[in-house]
């Protein structure tokens, strides 16, 4: 039962959503993002999984590559972004899974807001989560792999923001698409990774440049590619999201 709340605030304390206006749609986006993040803050299921998963990936990759300090130093950005890509899959899949298990997703779709708001809300939550994870993982990777920070370090948060946004857009979109299918755990990375290859490439090259493994001027071009990818996929996925959710 999703009766429209009467007062300015509903029982859960979330802002009331006026129907049909741009401000109302934005409020819906924020409410859904807030709901997802709140749920995560209380259960911490994904946090534990992704944080340890990323850490284990870092350690395993370092073991697999051996003792060569120079090799480790050079591969740090690549390992970091591969770990973040895997974490992105887990985060996005879980954000739909926890809703579907409790039947909450059907209720979410009953709200009189555009379907795109549901996508944008989930995207916002997933992106914020991944970006924070990236902020935690970056120094850990740099220390573990013996890479030193370069001079243009202020651009690193920009790379993290753009790169994780690209991951989050594609992962959230495909997670919605595969949410009701069999073998979704295996299917999501199969569908998502070929699409996010430009993001992976751009983010890794840009990070390499920023931590002094490459000419720093190269980072600008890769950041432009990331921004372009983010924009195009953001618009495309938002526009066609309503077609992939199951009624």
């Amino acid at each position, binding site marked *: 039962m999703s009766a429209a709340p009467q007062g300015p605030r509903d029982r859960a304390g979330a802002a009331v959503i006026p129907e049909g206006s741009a401000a109302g749609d934005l409020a819906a986006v924020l409410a859904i993002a807030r709901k997802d993040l709140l749920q995560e803050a209380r259960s911490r299921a994904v946090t534990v999984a992704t944080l340890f998963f990323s850490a284990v990936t870092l350690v395993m990759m370092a073991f697999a590559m051996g003792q060569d300090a120079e090799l480790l130093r050079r591969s740090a950005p690549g390992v970091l972004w591969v770990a973040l890509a895997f974490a992105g899959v887990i985060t996005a899949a879980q954000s739909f899974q926890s809703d579907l298990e409790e039947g909450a997703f059907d209720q979410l779709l009953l709200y009189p807001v555009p379907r795109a708001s549901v996508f944008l809300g989930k995207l916002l939550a997933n992106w914020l989560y991944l970006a924070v994870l990236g902020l935690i993982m970056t120094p850990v990777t740099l220390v573990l792999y013996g890479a030193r920070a370069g001079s243009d370090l202020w651009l690193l948060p920009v790379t993290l923001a753009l790169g994780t946004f690209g991951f989050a857009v594609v992962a959230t979109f495909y997670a919605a698409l595969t949410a009701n*299918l069999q073998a979704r755990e295996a299917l999501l990375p199969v569908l998502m990774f*070929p699409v996010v290859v*430009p993001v992976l490439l751009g983010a890794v090259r840009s990070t390499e440049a920023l931590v002094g493994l490459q000419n720093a001027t190269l980072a600008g071009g890769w950041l432009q590619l990331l921004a372009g990818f983010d924009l195009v996929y953001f618009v495309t996925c938002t526009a066609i999201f309503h077609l992939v959710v199951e009624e």
Partner: protein
Amino acid sequence: MTQRHETPRRPLWLRLLGLSTVVLFAVGAYLALVVSPPDVNQGQLIRMMYAHVSVAWVCFVAVIVTALYGMAFLWRGRPVDDTRAVANAEIATFFAGLTLISGMTYSRPTLNTWWTWDAKLTLTALMFALLVGYFVVRGLIDDPTRRGRVSAVIGIVVAVSLPFNYLAAAWFRTLHPTLSVAVTGIHIAPTMLFVLLFNVGVAALVYLTFVSERIRIGKLEHERDEERERREEGAPGEVVRV
């Protein structure tokens, strides 16, 4: 109780198209293998280029057409558009596989490696992976409308990913020979250009023939499914539209 169904015959135009494809394919092969002179640098190996470039071009056309029919399906919701999109996606997957195989065999003697992380090769490999994903997802959805919608969406995403994958791979590193037919000035012998364009035309004909045949089969499959659904519902006169 088995009911005998008469399989509808192939329409005349399709049989003629198939026949002319076979004839022109033979002509194209003759042109590429006998008429074309050996290349200054690559010698006889240039003959592989005709096959490789032709299938590669057709593969990209088929991917774009898949996305376009996907959009048409989303727009009008007619099952026939989904059938057309799938036909194109199947041809695209097949030609992407051919492009990869021919590209690898071609680059082994000319570039001295089976695989380079070059823009076009990487792009084709990624596209192949995306197209395989298209069919994996299709196989998991039973409801025809939802299946059509979801595959249309994936088809669109595949088409949108092409320029980005190309840009990223091109900046990454490139070893691939530049376009044989450049926009500014053609640096290829006239005979060879003719042979190349002829073979591209033949590949396009092969594509048209297979797509037409696949669409014909797809429509028959669709009719059969509808008929079966009617029979299961026990209402012989009722037409079930999906």
